[in-house]
């Protein structure tokens, strides 16, 4: 059957309009490529908008001792040394320039007394390093990039979903998608696609992520023949809201702790002092006096344990709750009210103040917040070349959360926004260069591929009397939360794979009601296939890795192992979506960078 579709031709098509996508598109445009941005939501609504704390960049505006080597070291140690060292290096070196560039495009960052961009403390960072705008830095970043992209005249396809990367002889030839509003199909003829689709959080029940986070880019890449790495590492942010139920999982920024907030259990104890791991013992304060003094004097005091990397804090909170020392609604207490003035809290954390006031009737300047871990970020993603963002599929690039390697087994707060800028730009530039190099021999889109993609997209309408996609999504979230969550075990992971197999079978026979015009049930049915594929990747890698490291904690293998610390798990898919896992040695860090870890 022939399907109607509209056709567009570009040099670079960027999928996703968060920080990485917008930055990639700007870079591709600046390099002379005809560039399009395709995004599932309206422009400016991508998940980057939710980022709160700031952009990590060793600008040295507040602490002149800060430099890229310190930032690099913090990042690698935060990721428990599993990071791609080259990505971590480029990131630390280029982040300051990327932040200052945002100012050129109109961003209004908070200032130091001297009028420079101010920087705030965050977990795992030795110095106050996060450029910020109150606690709405993501909004500032996305608006700045959005306005700049619009000013450059880059074409934006809003509320448009890509369902397939098209290839010819193994190289990218285009992308297939549909308009959410009309349900009509589009084909992009393009030799390069930059995936900037974000993460996978919607596969979990309790998450800080929006509906868009269905692992689209991960799944598109896998189906196009690319590989994923580090998928077992999922970050549970230590502080999400826990009450009321409707807001469970919504993020409470790490800035609360960076600005002086502390965690307490039901007995009023600052329990983080009980959870300082051997790995960070030398750089973490062991008394409340030292911890409190650190905010003003970093030279003679060590960092408060509340500002350990996120994986450590999330596990500690989890343990306190399990031990029965939690708060009334199943979290722990996050207290800034007794530590800082109301004026300070309202100035530094305006959106947290607003969020708790409006949604939970809690005045955070007067009482403690209740918080608990929430699925926040996936460290794993498309395996890319560190310098260019290129995947193993010629013409396919990835940047931001959908790319893997940069953060190793655990991401430090603030390193995401800088990652988006640094690698978004690199992927955009290199996609443009690639398009230029092959301009005389662009792969062409085959009619057969378009027909196949169109039929796959319409598949959910073909069955009658099946389950609705919402039910299957709900069950998937329950499975992932229960069996592939913050603490994992072999038998539970094996069980999760069985349940995921059953869910996949059920999803084959789901039924969508209504027609193609702005139909969220249909959209979800298509996203669900991606969620199932990516969830299986997470579970398979988690079962394989028999150690605990960063965002992967195995109850049956509680320690980190040196052997596992030297390798990545790489996932690929066969054409009929059978996933396979293999081990691959980590890239070896050059001697001069290794020295940075030996000195201390």
């Amino acid at each position, binding site marked *: 059957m022939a399907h109607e579709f509209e056709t567009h031709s570009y040099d670079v098509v960027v999928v996703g309009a968060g920080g990485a996508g917008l930055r990639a598109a700007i870079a591709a445009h600046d390099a002379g490529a005809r560039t399009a941005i395709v995004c599932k939501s309206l422009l400016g609504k991508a998940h980057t908008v939710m980022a709160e704390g700031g952009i990590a960049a060793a600008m040295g505006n507040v602490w002149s001792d800060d430099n890229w080597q310190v930032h690099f070291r913090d990042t690698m140690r935060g990721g428990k040394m599993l990071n791609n060292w080259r990505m971590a290096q480029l990131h630390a070196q280029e982040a300051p320039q990327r932040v200052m560039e945002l100012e050129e495009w*109109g961003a209004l960052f908070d*200032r130091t007394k001297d009028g420079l961009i101010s920087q705030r403390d965050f977990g795992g960072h030795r110095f106050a390093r996060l450029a910020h705008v109150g606690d709405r830095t993501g909004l500032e970043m996305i608006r700045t990039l959005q306005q*700049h992209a619009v000013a450059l005249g880059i074409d934006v396809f*809003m509320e448009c979903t890509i369902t397939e990367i098209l290839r010819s002889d193994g190289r990218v030839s285009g992308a297939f998608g549909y308009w959410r509003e009309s349900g009509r199909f589009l084909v992009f003829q393009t030799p390069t696609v930059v995936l900037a689709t974000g993460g996978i959080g919607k596969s979990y029940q309790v998450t800080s992520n929006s509906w868009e986070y269905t692992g689209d880019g991960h799944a598109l890449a896998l189906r196009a023949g690319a590989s994923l790495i580090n998928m077992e590492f999922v970050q549970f942010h230590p502080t999400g809201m826990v009450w009321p*139920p409707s807001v469970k999982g919504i993020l409470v920024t790490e800035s609360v702790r960076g600005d002086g907030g502390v965690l307490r259990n039901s007995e009023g104890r600052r329990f983080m002092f009980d959870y300082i791991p051997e790995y960070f013992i030398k750089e973490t304060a062991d008394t409340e006096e030292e911890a409190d003094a650190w905010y003003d004097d970093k030279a003679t005091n060590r960092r408060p344990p509340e500002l350990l990397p996120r994986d450590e804090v999330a596990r500690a909170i989890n343990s306190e709750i399990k031990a029965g020392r939690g708060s009334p609604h199943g979290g722990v207490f996050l207290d800034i009210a007794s530590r800082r003035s109301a004026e300070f809290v309202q100035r530094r954390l305006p959106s947290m103040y607003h969020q708790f006031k409006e949604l939970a009737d809690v005045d955070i300047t007067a009482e403690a917040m209740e918080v608990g871990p929430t699925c926040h970020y996936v460290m794993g993603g498309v395996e890319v070349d560190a310098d260019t963002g290129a995947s193993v599929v010629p013409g396919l690039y990835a940047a931001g959360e959908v790319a893997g390697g940069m953060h190793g087994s655990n991401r430090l707060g603030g390193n995401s926004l800088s990652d988006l800028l640094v690698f978004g730009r690199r992927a955009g530039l290199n996609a443009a260069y690639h398009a230029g190099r092959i301009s005389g021999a662009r792969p062409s889109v085959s009619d057969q591929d378009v027909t196949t993609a169109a039929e796959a997209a319409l598949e959910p309408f073909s069955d009658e009397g099946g389950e609705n996609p919402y039910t299957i999504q*709900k069950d998937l979230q329950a499975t992932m939360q229960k069996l592939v969550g913050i603490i994992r075990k072999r038998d539970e992971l094996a069980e999760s794979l069985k349940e995921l197999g059953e869910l996949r079978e059920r999803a084959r026979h789901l039924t969508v009601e209504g027609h193609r015009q*702005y139909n969220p049930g249909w959209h979800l049915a298509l996203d669900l296939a991606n969620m199932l594929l990516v969830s299986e990747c997470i579970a398979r890698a988690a079962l394989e890795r028999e150690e605990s490291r960063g965002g992967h904690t195995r109850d049956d293998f509680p320690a980190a192992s040196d052997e596992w610390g030297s390798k990545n798990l790489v996932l690929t898919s066969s054409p009929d979506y059978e996933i396979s896992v293999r081990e691959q040695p980590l890239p070896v860090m050059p001697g001069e960078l290794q020295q940075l870890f030996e000195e201390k």
Partner: protein
Amino acid sequence: MGYDLALRVWRGDRSGGDHGDYVVEVEEGEVVLDAIHRLQATQCGDLAVRWNCKAGKCGSCSAEVNGRPRLLCMTRLSDFEEDETITVTPLRGFPVVRDLVTDVSFNYEKARELPAFSPGPPDADGKRRMMQSDVERGQEFRKCIECFLCQDVCHVIRDHDDNKPAFAGPRMFLRYAELDMHPWDTNDRRKLAQDAAGIGLCNITKCCTEVCPEGIKITDNAIIPMKERVADRKYDPLVWLGSKISRRDRREEP
């Protein structure tokens, strides 16, 4: 704890539609968007609604609740009586696409018409400096989450589609004011605000300020100062010329 909520939701598309009456189970602490989602998941799988963050930060889920423009994710059920019927309808100021989803492309077209930020050169060391007090004026406007509730409620365009070509609306006036107050911007946006964006059509009824979920004082802090600066430029070319020559003066309010 939980109760059955009577929900009336507009269903339809460009060709027309009607309210549908539904009963949805809801829990303590929920917001209207939760009820809409449960309706979607259990009774109307194809009910169209926009949303993203569900925390009042992205401005996607704008609609009208009992006739009042609101974010669905920030409208708590506890603001209503349990036996009260809650009516949810699409934004009236924009053409409907389907159910609660409207065509807000007007706002994106107006955004394209605005000349970009254009800073002067940085300081000699390559860095740029500005004082926190200067930053804060613009920051108030940059809190805008582009929910377009101000555009929806603005009566210059709410019931007068014919004004739309000549009027950019409160959201865009925030942008003009923000850029005009930016210490580094080198464009003079006052003529643009008057001619292209139609700020003169605004008669300061403050409807936009009332509905802003971010609490931005759109009328008092953006529109009125901008109108005054436009008037200043319009009627006193010498003042305008002087302000072009002296960098500092250009930044002062008249």
